[in-house]
């Protein structure tokens, strides 16, 4: 039997339509008068569940802690959780639903920049506070928006600076070919030039590329002192095995802004992963009393089969604690009052050290650490205390211009 091309295309189109329609999920509704409502949206299923599940695990832990400590304004904090299924149209739909039907006082969640931009604009319009707790490319300047994640303006300097000090000034950049990768690569270019270094090669990879042979040859020819990558997704993760197979992991040091964010350090054998240098605001291996207690509690709730936590998931813990603290201090869930408290330099102590909300940018000042992969975990080698959020290059000032709603890109 033969299949004609046309019938195949028709068939594929039918399949695509079926996928786009997607399953429909209606969360259980429950409402009581004496509760304060919040909304959470995470990628609990689909391609991004690897992140979303841990994010929600951290958020849930924070919510339970808030309620155990007396709740919000003396009432129980009741959070409705939505599973985006890693799909953008679900973000759109659920963001509206949370505000219009559930009437939540705050929305937290999202992982990718695209999901953030979908709900940020909706929540801005509907005047409902939004906390985005992921490390991202930075630059959002919006009075309704608060970010607890690290941004490249903070960590790229530190990471490339540390690598240049250790290995030399010639850098090869490899980055994902979209918003986050492109912008982070710009920050790396700037940081390397400012420190007197030289970028000897720069390559961008679509998210589907999983063959790196030609690039590895090009790197061998360019002979950089180290390679700095901004990889995203499972296809790019293929790079490390190919790099090790060519024996390059023993010759040229690897620096990454993303390695470890998806539990790679547990999944990849030490022969492949050892030596990769990273910079995050949280590692499980941090020797801080708060972290030891926090991590023990996390493991008690979630077991040990969750990978390895770095920057992203614990920030969802911070996000909820931040909001609850601000509401309790303001004495109301009214948006204006809560923003005022948050802009008053609110600080939350947590597993990665204290985070302080910056009034001008609505991003956080936080401790950053340099960690090197070693034997299935990270060895913490350096701490830089209280790094301010410089991700908009001082373009954002929400105190002077509260009506701003833009996303700045670095001027380089």
């Amino acid at each position, binding site marked *: 039997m033969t*299949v004609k091309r046309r019938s195949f295309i028709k068939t594929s189109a039918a399949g695509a339509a079926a996928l786009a329609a997607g399953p429909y999920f209606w969360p259980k509704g429950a409402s009581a008068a004496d509760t304060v409502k919040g909304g959470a949206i995470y990628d609990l299923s689909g391609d991004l569940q690897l992140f979303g599940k841990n994010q929600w695990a951290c958020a849930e832990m924070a919510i339970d802690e808030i309620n155990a400590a007396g709740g919000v304004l003396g009432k129980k904090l009741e959070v409705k959780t939505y599973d985006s299924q890693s799909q953008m149209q679900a973000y759109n739909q659920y963001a509206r639903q949370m505000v219009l039907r559930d009437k939540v006082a705050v929305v937290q969640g999202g992982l990718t920049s695209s999901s953030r931009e979908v709900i940020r604009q909706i929540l801005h319009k509907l005047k409902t506070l939004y906390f985005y707790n992921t490390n991202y490319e930075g630059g959002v300047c919006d009075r309704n928006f608060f970010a607890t994640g690290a941004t490249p303006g903070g960590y790229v300097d530190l990471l490339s600076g540390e690598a240049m000090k250790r290995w030399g000034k010639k850098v090869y950049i490899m980055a994902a070919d979209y918003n986050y990768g492109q912008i982070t690569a710009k920050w790396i270019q700037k940081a390397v030039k400012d420190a007197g270094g030289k970028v000897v090669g720069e390559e961008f990879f679509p998210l589907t590329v999983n*063959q790196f042979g030609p690039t590895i040859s090009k790197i061998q*020819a360019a002979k950089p002192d180290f390679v700095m990558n901004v990889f995203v997704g499972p296809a790019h993760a293929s790079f490390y095995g*190919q790099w090790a197979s060519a*024996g390059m992991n023993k010759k040229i040091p690897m620096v990454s802004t993303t390695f470890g964010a998806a539990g790679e350090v547990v999944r990849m054998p030490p022969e492949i992963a050892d030596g990769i240098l990273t910079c995050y605001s949280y590692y499980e291996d941090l020797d801080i009393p708060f972290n030891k207690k926090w991590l023990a509690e996390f493991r008690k709730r979630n077991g040990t089969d969750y990978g390895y936590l770095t920057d992203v998931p614990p920030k969802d813990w911070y996000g909820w604690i931040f909001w609850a603290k601000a509401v309790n201090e303001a004495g109301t869930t009214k948006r204006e009052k809560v923003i005022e408290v948050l802009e008053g330099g609110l600080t939350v102590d947590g597993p990665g050290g204290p985070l302080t909300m910056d009034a001008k940018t609505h991003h956080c000042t936080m401790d950053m650490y340099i960690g090197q992969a070693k034997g299935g975990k990270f060895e913490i080698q350096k701490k830089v205390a209280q790094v301010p959020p410089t991700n908009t290059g001082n373009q954002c000032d929400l105190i002077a211009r509260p009506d701003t709603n833009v996303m700045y890109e670095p001027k380089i």
Partner: protein
Amino acid sequence: MDLAVVVVIQILYAVASLALISIGLAIIFGMMGVINFAHGEFLMMGGYAFILSYNAGVNFWIAMLVVAPVTIAVIGVVVERLIIRHLYGRVIETVLATWGLSLFLIGLAATVLGYHQKGVNPPFGTIRIGAYQEGGYTFFVIFVTLALMAALYVGFKYTRWGLIARGTMQNAQMASGIGVNVDRVYATTFGIGAALSGLAGAILAPIAGVLPEIGVTYVVKAFITVIGGGAVALAGTGAASSLFGAVSQAVTFLSRPVVGEVALLVVAIVLLRLLPLGITGRYFRRGL
């Protein structure tokens, strides 16, 4: 000079890996006319079968070359008996059913196996080529793919089983009329296709990693290769992967990875415009 050698090796590798990820799909499509949308997940499961059995203490090569293909062959036969056999000749239904299967398998892998299974370090050292060095595993992938294609050729061309399989695919009713158990031939062929996918997934596991969604990164290229190759499984896969692999890799070397990806798609579109039934719609029609 050494750069030229490296480029040639890389192109051979690109062709081989493309053929490797496509051959299982090509056999199921070419011989049976079934479009298996769960092909990527067969690769994924092959990878898991390999790393799980290896981490459980099975010898590296046995885990890769025996455990993975046998496991996926069994799964393939079960899938054929439970789902595919009810849908022969109904292309749209097969696509939907296997797509559903694909989503189910990803979900199952994510739930049962999770994202944090320890991977495997690629074996072999490196080989120096002038100023460059290339992983020994690259040569291994090229060699295994060649051996596999040769074995399939011999198997289909010169064995009694191959003759029966080819006869059944050409005219199932006639084969049935002269006493061939058509059901069994279909199940076996599907099983072989699945086994090849499982083997490919296992071979690529050390250099690609294994995650529940990893199949998605293979499946598009595998489909383009198979459709570009046409209905004749072996010759089609060989010809299409040579063309696509060489073009995309050469362009990647000359410019950037994104242009390499675009070049592959452009070549595929032009090819299908000129040869709507794929390369084997016009050439090598009497091949295997």
